[in-house]
């Protein structure tokens, strides 16, 4: 297994974590269907999918590490570099654009001093411009980790960030 940070190594040997992977593996007619679910588990645990994790899943699900890596790099919700503690997702697609998403994105860029795709130096916030989140009647849509905020103003954004800080 390739080198990983001690906390990652520890987690990958944690019986509780391994049990979750086994449960996902058994939840579908074929284990390979569990790959994306397992990757979600890793992404939320480590805020990325470390190489050691990819290797572990490859072994558990009977795939090559190269296949797992190919999957990780294909899907936008999986990353190979850690994201910030809070993933700030601003919807940029047409209906939200019509509702004023540009202002939200610009406000966040100014406030955090980063561009979309970047993380603040303290590792707290990653800003991303995402595509349609399927709540277009209540744009601008703003998702913080798993929480969706609808129809946000720049004041709402300030309040939401303040509550996180």
């Amino acid at each position, binding site marked *: 297994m390739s080198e990983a940070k001690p906390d990652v190594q520890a987690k990958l040997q944690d019986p509780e974590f391994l049990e979750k992977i086994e449960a996902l593996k058994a*939840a*579908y*007619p*074929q284990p*390979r*269907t*569990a*790959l*994306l*679910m397992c*990757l*979600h588990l890793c992404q939320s645990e480590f805020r990325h999918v470390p190489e050691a994790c990819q290797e572990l899943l490859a072994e558990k*699900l009977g*795939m090559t590490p190269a*296949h797992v890596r*190919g*999957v990780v790099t*294909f*899907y*936008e*919700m*999986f990353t190979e570099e850690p994201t910030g503690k809070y993933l700030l*997702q601003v919807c*940029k*697609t*047409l*209906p939200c*654009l*019509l*509702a004023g998403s*540009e202002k939200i*994105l*610009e406000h966040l*860029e100014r406030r955090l001093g980063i*561009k*979309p*795709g970047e993380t603040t130096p303290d590792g707290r916030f990653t800003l*991303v*411009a*995402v*595509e*349609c*989140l*399927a*709540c*277009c*009647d*209540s*744009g601008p849509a703003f*998702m913080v980790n*798993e929480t*969706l905020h609808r129809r946000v103003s720049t004041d709402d954004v300030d309040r939401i960030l303040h509550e996180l800080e």
Partner: protein
Amino acid sequence: MAEPLKLLTRNVGKPNSTHIDTYMASGGYEPLMKALHKMTPEQVLNEVKAANLKGRGGAAFPAGLKWSFLPRKKEGEKKEPLKYLVCNADESEPGTFKDRLLIENDPHAILEGILIAGWATQAAGCFFYIRGEMPQGARIFQRAVDQAYAKGFLGKNILGSGFDFDVWVARGAGAYICGEETALMESLEGKRGQPRLKPPFPAGYGVYGVPSNINNVETYANVPLIIQNGAAWYTSIGTPSMPGPRLYGVSGHVKRPGIYELPGGVSLREILYEHAGGILGDRPLKAVIPGGSSTPVLRADQIDVAMDPDGLKTVGSMIGSAGVIVMNDTVCMVKALLNLLEFYARESCGQCTPCREGTHWLELILRRLEEGGGKEADVDLIVEVSENIMGRTICPLGDAAAMPAISFAKQFREEFLAHAKLGRCPMGHVPMTTVV
């Protein structure tokens, strides 16, 4: 004016609407019992065929006909051939947000529709594939599935019928292309979401290579209504090319954006001005995309049209997902199209050169036009590049990008040309500086 319906949305807004007890308190799962105990699979299939239920995912393909493509056991055979259903809950088409409403408010209606479809096709189970950005929806649906198992509506020998059926919830992870049926199946197999060449079609070669049937969330949610009330009742709602109720999602420049449940084939004008409250700021209407971002755009003088396949054909568009995106006169059409091409270029899976390169070039040409560096010939170039994508790709995403591009450039040609002539956006817009 048609009154809003309360059929698909009958449970929306009820307290604890996602719980199985709430669902059953108003007759939920009675259609399933009727199907299992009083109807043969063939009778259920024929009822759905007679209802002419059209797919709500985009292509409006008749659901009953699609179900009948799945193999059934032949005379003298003991066992049904293995086959699966898939419920497409990937909902990622820009302007589309109706499936979220059903998933988050009435998961049992979807589940019951899936179960009845399972009985009609004698399938072994259903994969519920939900987009990764709906973690809440995935939890709600999983809880509904767990409740249905506990009540004996899922699992072995359902309600004593001898019928076994399972449901597996799987999450996507942020890829529009996984809404395309064969890409979705690849994703379910733990792979990159790259569409398969067709044929073979899913009915012959689906998930794990097993014959599979895929329908949209809203399509399945219609099935209990049909079984409960019959095909004749169902076709008395809506129009011949879009029978039954339909969830219209209205976004953009209207006073009351939202989901409106109305008969299939209702007029677009009625949706905009009566249900959605008219145009934001009481400004002139400029353009409407009628069925999600992939459908050709309409001008303001084209909205006296029925929202069904036949009606929209007369104005060169399509019903798609019935996601209506409204733009008033403050919108720059070049900028709006640029936004859509950014989307398609980002979401192209990259397998086909015309789609991968074409969407990228369209994005560059549009950016150049909007920034003021475009030429008049660019307007024809947009059409030419798009026409070279159409029909030359593995999956319909290529067409889905080309159709809006061609229609914007043709319907708003003068505005596109003005960008080149003036060397800037005539409305003073600038493109978003931040992409990705």
